[in-house]
């Protein structure tokens, strides 16, 4: 595909347009993904998550500067939530990364979650891969962090950084397990604020008490991203994590799991999309749907009627076949 060739040759315009196609789930996507496949594997993916207002964007901005000084190229994917009411979004992370706008070694793309329940938009993985194929050394992904939806980022990233702020100190006991368990690195940002040391200590205590894996103990860093304090140390911990992953073989294991996850997810999404199309067109399903809506039958019984109806399922399969 010509656009892919141009992207691989370094055209950022083509990269941007390919990202749009992937985001939109255009028909060319399988072809695009197939052609970039041999060009993957160079980039290290770092995910950033945490409560809103923690300074993730500023941190990503300063970290990017550290990486650039060392001669690495960076791709940034900054995600913000889509409004469930209007379907629109305000993508306001890029505004914190002004210093990199004219640097060809930094490519920044803002993405709306577009209905994805997790912290990451559905298309994020594909976009990360495009940035990898484009030749970026690091791909930094920043997401909305709310509750336990961070599993998405843990699965997509090689290194997951959880960014907290001192105000979270008192609520650490009630903090949802998921957020604390997925971190490879903890950052307490806005460390000039009261409670920063306390939060850091609490985190370290909790980490000592739990035991995840022996090859990596998540460090707790304190930063003041806005003043560029602690960002060098953050970079070094990311590098160290990357080395540990490599040395212990866990990197290739993670990549394996990522590939498996993507495979299954893509099939799942494909089936779901087809199913929704059929629901809209199939009269029998519509009839069942209406009975459920009127309260004549409960959703579970109604769905079992459908799922155990062999002739119905077979006719759907036949229809899917015919469509292709």
């Amino acid at each position, binding site marked *: 595909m010509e656009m892919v060739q141009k992207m691989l040759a370094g055209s*950022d*315009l083509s990269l*941007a*347009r390919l*990202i*749009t196609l992937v*985001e*939109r*789930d*255009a*028909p060319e996507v399988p072809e695009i993904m197939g052609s970039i496949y041999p060009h993957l594997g160079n980039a290290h993916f770092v995910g950033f998550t945490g409560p809103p207002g923690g300074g993730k964007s500023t941190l990503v901005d300063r970290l990017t500067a550290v990486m650039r000084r060392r001669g690495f190229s960076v791709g940034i994917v900054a995600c913000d939530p*889509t*409004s469930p*009411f*209007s*379907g*629109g*979004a*305000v*993508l*306001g992370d*890029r*505004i914190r990364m*002004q210093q990199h*706008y*004219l640097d060809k070694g930094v*490519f*920044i*793309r*803002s993405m*709306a979650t*577009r209905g994805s329940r997790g912290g990451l938009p559905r298309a994020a993985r594909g976009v990360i891969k495009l940035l990898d194929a484009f030749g970026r050394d690091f791909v930094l992904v920043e997401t909305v962090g709310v509750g336990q939806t961070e599993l998405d980022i843990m699965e997509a990233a090689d290194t997951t950084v959880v960014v907290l702020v001192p105000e979270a100190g008192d609520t650490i006991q009630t903090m949802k397990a998921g957020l604390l368990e997925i971190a490879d690195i903890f950052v307490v940002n806005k460390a000039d604020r009261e409670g920063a040391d306390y939060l850091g200590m609490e985190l370290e205590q909790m980490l000592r008490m739990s035991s995840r894996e022996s090859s990596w103990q998540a460090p707790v860093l304190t930063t003041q991203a806005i003043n560029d304090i602690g960002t060098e140390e953050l970079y070094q911990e990311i590098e160290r994590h990357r080395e540990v992953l490599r040395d212990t073989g866990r990197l290739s294991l993670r990549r394996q799991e990522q590939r498996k996850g993507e495979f299954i997810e893509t099939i799942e999404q*494909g089936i779901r*999309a*087809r199913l929704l199309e059929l629901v809209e067109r199939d009269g029998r399903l519509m009839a069942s749907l209406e009975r459920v809506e009127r309260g004549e039958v409960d959703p579970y019984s109604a769905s079992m009627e459908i799922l155990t109806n062999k002739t119905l399922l077979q006719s759907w399969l036949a229809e899917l076949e015919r469509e292709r």
Partner: protein
Amino acid sequence: MAEERRIRVLMAKPGLDGHDRGARVLTLGLRDEGMEVIYTGLRQTPDKIVEAAIQEDVDVVGLSCLSGAHRYLFPEVVEGLRERGAQDVMVIGGGIIAKEDIPFLKEKGIDAVFGPGTPVKEIANYIRENAKRK
């Protein structure tokens, strides 16, 4: 399987003008109209705006200027987009722009100018009807 197309807009304030209320109101307004709006903030240079527009593959660039520098800054953005091969991106302007300047701006490639008091819906409809499908 293709998803519904979402219109992406870059909202920028070129030059040194610091009055951003209009840009913010429009940012939120277009979000409520279902668009994805990337707000790049104050004190943007034309080339920064062009770079951002390219990376974000936007359909529309919205330029807000209340300092009177629009005759210079707006065409710079249009020219920059053209040079990079992104001439199909719609460029619209707003702020404090003298009526007499509008024909000049249009000649330079600005698609439309929306002055103070323009209802957000009008701008949204214009975008929806005229943004080029990629």
